[in-house]
């Protein structure tokens, strides 16, 4: 067993869920999920921010009293004054840990300790060291990094807790344009929050019927669900400190349990993958990025 066991972080819920569903999800996480840290907050679209504000306080309290570390995430794409203000406000408060998803928020932390989310481009040790010099204490690496890069970054930037995006649909891109609203006949400015109709995203298929992508408001995600459950031991050997699990419409408590069991070597990774299929029955899993092949592919020792 390694000296420090791997930690599990529940990433921010990237989809728009209605308020009761959102609250109940986090209550269950607080009560049942074996995760060390929970990242809360709207990352994808500032228009959604007001939905969870009314219940945020009670969710934070429930998570904290269950012994979970709580981080508040900043928006990924900040263009409007209103968005900039909300990022500054987040950076200036002292009550909760912060995870930044773009550099305005990072700068606004003014060197105070904070986490870096997976949507900040950290492709090398020099970048990680620079971010650490201006306050970053943990970094969730971009999902598209191959193992060779992860290894080199960890070697070149000691003293930072690195996290890897281990489960969930991969956030691949973000746009000023809302494809999700457009497909349903609305514009971004008058979107009627139609992305909320698809709590697990809206599938995008090719004209030949292949599953390809998933729409989540202004964000485009993979159609496959990233699963690094068969790579957990390799990541641990590299010195990765934490695994990020990104919420999907599936049994996230079971997902956390499976990753924990594999990380603690209590469950065979391939068996873990099988169980993962039961926890998220309709998902197709992939882990191509870390194996330096197209991200949509699944590479396991079993082939």
């Amino acid at each position, binding site marked *: 067993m390694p000296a420090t066991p791997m930690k599990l972080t529940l990433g921010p819920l990237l989809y728009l869920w209605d308020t009761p569903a959102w609250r109940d999800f986090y209550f269950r996480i607080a009560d049942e999920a074996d995760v060390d840290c929970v990242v809360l907050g709207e990352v994808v679209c500032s228009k959604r921010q007001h939905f969870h504000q009314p219940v945020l306080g009670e969710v934070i309290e429930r998570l904290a009293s269950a012994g979970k570390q709580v981080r508040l995430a900043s928006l990924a794409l900040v263009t409007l004054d209103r968005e*900039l203000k909300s990022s500054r406000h987040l950076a200036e408060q002292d009550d909760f840990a912060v995870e930044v998803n773009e550099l305005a928020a990072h700068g606004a932390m003014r060197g105070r300790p904070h986490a870096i989310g997976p949507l900040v481009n950290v492709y090398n040790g020099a970048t990680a060291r620079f971010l650490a010099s201006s306050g970053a204490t943990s970094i969730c690496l*971009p999902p598209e990094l191959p193992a060779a890069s992860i290894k080199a970054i960890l070697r070149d930037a000691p003293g930072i807790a690195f996290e890897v995006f281990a489960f969930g649909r991969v956030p691949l*891109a973000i746009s000023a344009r809302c494809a999700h609203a457009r497909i349903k006949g609305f514009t971004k400015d008058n979107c009627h929050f139609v992305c909320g109709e698809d709590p697990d995203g809206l599938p995008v298929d090719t004209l030949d019927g292949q599953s390809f*992508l998933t729409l989540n408001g202004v964000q485009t995600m993979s159609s496959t669900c990233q699963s690094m459950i068969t790579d957990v031991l390799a990541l641990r050997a590299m010195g990765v400190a934490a695994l990020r699990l990104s919420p999907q419409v599936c049994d996230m408590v079971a997902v956390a349990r499976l990753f924990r069991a594999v990380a603690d070597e209590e469950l065979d990774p391939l068996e873990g993958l099988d169980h993962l299929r039961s926890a998220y029955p309709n998902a197709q899993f992939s882990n191509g990025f870390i194996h330096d092949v*197209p991200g949509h592919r699944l590479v396991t020792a079993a082939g």
Partner: protein
Amino acid sequence: MELICPAGTPASFRDAIDAGADAVYCGFRDETNARNFPGLNFSRDELAEAVSYAGGRGVKTLVAINTFMRAGNEQLWTRAIDDAAELGADAVILADLGLLAYAAERYPQLRRHLSVQAGAANADHIDFLVETFGIRRAVLPRVLTVAEVATISKRVKCETEVFVFGGLCVMEEGRCSLSSYATGKSPNMHGVCSPASHVRYRRDGTEMVSGLGEFTINRFPESEPAGYPTLCKGRFVAGGQSGYIFEDPASLDVLSQLHALEAAGVTALKIEGRQRGRAYISQVVTEIRKALGTLGGAPRTVTDGNALRKLSEGQRTTEGSYDKRWR
């Protein structure tokens, strides 16, 4: 406003200058720039010649080193900075924080422009980098309206540059892994998007089918203008509808907004297209130079929209995010 023109080869570099560029941007023949395409870009000798050709005509040479250093291979990127500085580039265009730190420390006198690939979409982001790395100019991502461009340009402590014509990223630049998801080749790490090595065309009955890796990106009925299978400009099916879900195959054209961009305080206008041929470069630079010439007095810009449209993807143009309704 300065006119910043693309060049993928020495010949198009000279053509851009002869057509009226104030500055030309180009890159080395490797993954250090975001147009790492076969047969394109500059050797060290070619860049030296280009810098001297440009310098003799009062034109600036900007070297794009705007991909992200691949961990373990950083020397490829730092050497590109060393060489650009040594060969007399007027500025380097950078996106990677580690590389910005290297350039600022080693070559403080070398102008640093923030690449569009840095995805700096607000004033705080840009000013943080101005204060930290002495950025002199930021190229703004194509996610902003003209009003937002104005707000940023007025507030930041450096110059701003915006794209006015050419290929259009639908997604925020530098934060898109669609290509590596489909092909394993990434814009950020390899300098390619929807790479030719993974493109296949096949005929299916009367239709032409374009594919990228294992995915079908589009089907063109006979006689419909075709497009290169750029991922975000493909035809897909979602929510029971099929069509161009992200964007039509179209190019950006905001020449009708030149007055507004000038009033916004923008320093430089950029043309996309280092991967395009000399014919494109000469024609586009000439037309836009003409349009800029009319800015002083005439109330509206007159350009040959038709000539430029023929050079566009799908032979269509859009104002993209600059027009609020596009969103």
